[in-house]
């Protein structure tokens, strides 16, 4: 029985985002907030206090007019694997709130365990974690639009992108009702992937050669953010532009880009 379990290859869910396709429209951010019951406030002008599991950053090459170029970069949680699942946030959490699942490769966050010390926020180099300074208040009638599969958060806890994990649970339920143990690629897709009108986001199992992400991540134009920190993130970006790839990490001015670590 135990041996049998070991033979099933562990999944490693990840994302490949094609930055050449991203137009920065923000549909993924909207879909993410709706899917995951992400709270918002009446006044969202102070972006330091807003919660955005997926956030689009604007990169510029900093050159004057004729050569000026911009690039939009959507940033979900990177679900870092680190070394053997020791992601930066997982290592620092004193309450086992956040955990790395070796079977799916997803970094989980259990809100009811969190007591809000925010070590994980300090540890995360991607600013992917957000703190609930207030209890969520939904505009009258909007609570009917909340997703019942995602538990809402309360004041004083940290939250972050879960790769829409509840969708995996629901997909798995359906597969099991049909007598299957495994979930097909199209059955488990994140909300941002499905919402992107440009098809820039691809999601799937990085360990499964049949999934689209498996090939995409091997593109010579693929890179990950702050790779040299050793966080081993599971979100890959693709860009044909050298300056975009270079802005994915910190380089010295005279440094020639080192290929892969």
């Amino acid at each position, binding site marked *: 029985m135990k041996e049998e*379990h070991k033979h099933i290859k562990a999944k490693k869910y990840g994302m490949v985002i094609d930055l050449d396709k991203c137009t920065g429209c923000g549909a993924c951010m909207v879909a993410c907030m709706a899917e995951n019951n992400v709270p918002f406030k009446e006044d969202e002008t102070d972006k330091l206090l807003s919660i955005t599991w997926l956030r689009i950053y604007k990169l510029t090459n900093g050159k004057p007019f004729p050569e000026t170029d911009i690039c939009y970069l959507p940033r979900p949680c990177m679900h870092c694997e680190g070394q053997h699942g020791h992601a930066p946030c*997982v290592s620092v959490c004193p309450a086992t709130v956040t*955990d790395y*699942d070796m079977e799916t490769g997803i970094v989980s966050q259990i809100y009811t365990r969190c007591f809000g010390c925010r070590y994980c926020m300090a540890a995360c180099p991607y600013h992917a974690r957000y703190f609930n300074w207030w209890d969520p208040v939904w505009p009258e009638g909007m609570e009917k639009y909340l997703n019942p599969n995602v538990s809402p958060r309360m004041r004083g806890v940290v939250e972050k992108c879960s790769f829409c*994990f509840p969708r995996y*649970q629901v997909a798995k*339920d359906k597969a099991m009702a049909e007598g299957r143990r495994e979930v097909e690629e199209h059955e488990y897709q994140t909300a941002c992937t499905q919402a992107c009108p440009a098809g820039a986001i691809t999601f799937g199992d990085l360990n499964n050669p049949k999934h689209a992400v498996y090939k995409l991540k091997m593109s010579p134009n693929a890179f990950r953010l702050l790779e040299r920190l050793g966080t081993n993130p599971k979100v890959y970006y693709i860009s044909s532009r050298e300056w975009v790839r270079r802005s994915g990490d910190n380089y010295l001015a005279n440094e020639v880009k080192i290929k892969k670590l």
Partner: protein
Amino acid sequence: MSKLDDKKTDQKGQEDGVRGFIILFFIIGLFASLIVGWMIFPSLLYSKKKQPIDFNHVLHVEAVDQGCESCHYIREDGSFSGVPKLAQCVDCHEEVQGEDPEEAKFVNEYVAEGKEVPWLVYSRQPDCVFFSHVTHTKMAEMDCATCHGAIGESEHSKIYEQNRISGYSRDIWGKNIAGFKKNTWDRMKMDDCSECHVKNHVRQASVQTKKGGCFVCHK
């Protein structure tokens, strides 16, 4: 000399009396606090509520062919139907069929008015819990009774005991205040789920705990 001795024994006798009184007082206090802690407090901790309709499971199980799954079934998409909605009951209970006053109450108050019955769910889990019935009943071939007990053999709905602090049912917290468990269905806390998961090696893939990953049962 002898007078002095008398005085000493007198003092000793008095001291013994005081000591005995202290011990007696201590024992009374101990018993009183034990009774308060183990009997009065637990009964105050839970408020007792009656189901809106006293439901007879025995009668219904006899009338259907597929046991529990006739009413509590798994939908095509793998989700669990839970407590039946009014529409399901109306199939049979459009009119009063028997003599039972509870059935008459159900038909007159709910069916006639088209109002859902506000059943109190004994096994309602907190928001953060994801429980898949299909995984346990179909894939792991577990009986309903393993977690829910012999509820199908009940002729009356038992009193719903609600924890005044957390709002959850006593079937979640457990009947025994000391935490002793005789049957698998006595309690439905996280430890009870993980006890079985550890025993059966269910997805023991967590990096932090080396036990089950959190996103197996949480959402």
